[in-house]
Every structure is written in C-alpha cells, then in structure tokens.
C-alpha cells in the first residue's frame, strides 16, 4: 500500500524532507520504522532511539504497536513542546 509519511522538527531535519510517499507492506508503525531504517543511514540515525519519537496516524496520536490499517498518513515527531 501507499502511505504519506510526514516528519517534523529534528526528524524532518535529519531525514531531509518534510513528507514523502512510501510504498510499504508494513503491518504496524514499528514495522514501518524498521523498513525506513533499512533504507538509508539518515533514517537509521533519525529512528535510532524511538523512545524520543512520537507518532500520529491520520492526525491522531498513536503508538508504535498500532496497526497501520487503512491509515493514509503517518507522522513522526519528537515530544511536543507547545504552550
């Protein structure tokens, strides 16, 4: 399936793009991260510590064990610093 992957803050800077379309067979967010890490060093570095990364599926906060299901958009970002 084809999914839109978004990156924010230092993840965006390390990976070098704000968003990209990814062809994947991953079942869960964790599987998708493993696929991305296997692609290139910049992904591997960005996701080296997933405890520092948060994820949203279709713009709702989620977690790494969540099934991608028919999500159209996955976003990765560091812990939020609003307010």
């Amino acid at each position, binding site marked *: 399936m084809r999914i839109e992957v*978004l990156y*924010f*803050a*230092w993840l*965006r800077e390390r990976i070098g793009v704000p968003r990209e379309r990814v062809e994947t067979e991953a079942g869960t967010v964790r599987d998708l991260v493993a696929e991305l890490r296997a692609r290139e060093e910049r992904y591997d570095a960005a996701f080296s510590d997933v405890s520092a990364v948060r994820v*949203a599926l279709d*713009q*709702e*906060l989620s977690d790494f064990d969540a099934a991608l299901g028919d999500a159209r*958009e996955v*976003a990765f*970002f*560091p*812990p*939020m*610093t*609003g*307010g």
Partner: protein
Amino acid sequence: MPVVVQEDPFDPGAELSRLVAGRRDMGAMVTFTGLVRDTGAGDLRHMEIEHYPGMTVRAIEGMVAHATERWTLGAAHVVHRYGRMAVGEAIMMVATAAPHRGDAFAAAEFLMDYLKSRAPFWKKEVTDRGEDWVTARAEDEAALGRWS
C-alpha cells in the same frame, strides 16, 4: 472562534474582551499568556515554532471540548502562534470564562498542561551559539497525570 492557530501576532487584551462580550452570566475570567523568554545565556535571537497543520486545530479543539465537559464554563479560547517570534512576544494564550472562578482556574490549567505536551508544536531557539530544538520536560509530561 474558540481555537485559533496563526502566524501573526495577536492582542491578548482584544481576545479577552471578546471572550465575555454580551454575557451576563460569567463571574470569572482566567487567562494565561505565554511569552518568548530569553535563554539563560541572554543571547536568544528569536524563536521558531513549527506545527502540524492538519492536526493542530483539531487536537486543541479536542482539549477544549474535554474541558467544557468537565467544568462549567461559559467560554474557552486558545490562540497559538507558529513561525518566527522575538523575545517578549506572546506565543499563545488560553482564556476561560465561567460563572465561578474555581472552574475557570482549573480549566485554564488543564488546557495549559495539555497544550504543553499534546498539541503538535515544536519550539526551536536560535541563539548566537546556533539553533536548538527545545526539549520536552519530564515535569510537563508528569503534570498530565493530575487530570486523569
């Protein structure tokens, strides 16, 4: 508009007057305004705030809806900026109005705690020494625990 996410500066006083305009049943108004603060080293050039446009407003509206269910409020407004801002500029504000002050205070604190850690904003400080993403603080995450 109870939730506004914008790049432009805003006027906290004007927001405040709008909050209870025409209301006769509100006895209390609580506001919090967050400002860009210089670093300990005193060399902040400006702050940059990134956000997730598709998610931000909806996430904050969810927080406001939750606060409105939990406390007796007449109004709850959130304004949050993104983009570049200078030291001393207002970054965001939360304003709540209620018949009684207890509800207004509690709802404002609740909204602030959630905005800190659950609204998709990321702050970056640009100083004479370079650029740094602001790290989320464990205390801010822990503060959410008191509302569950």
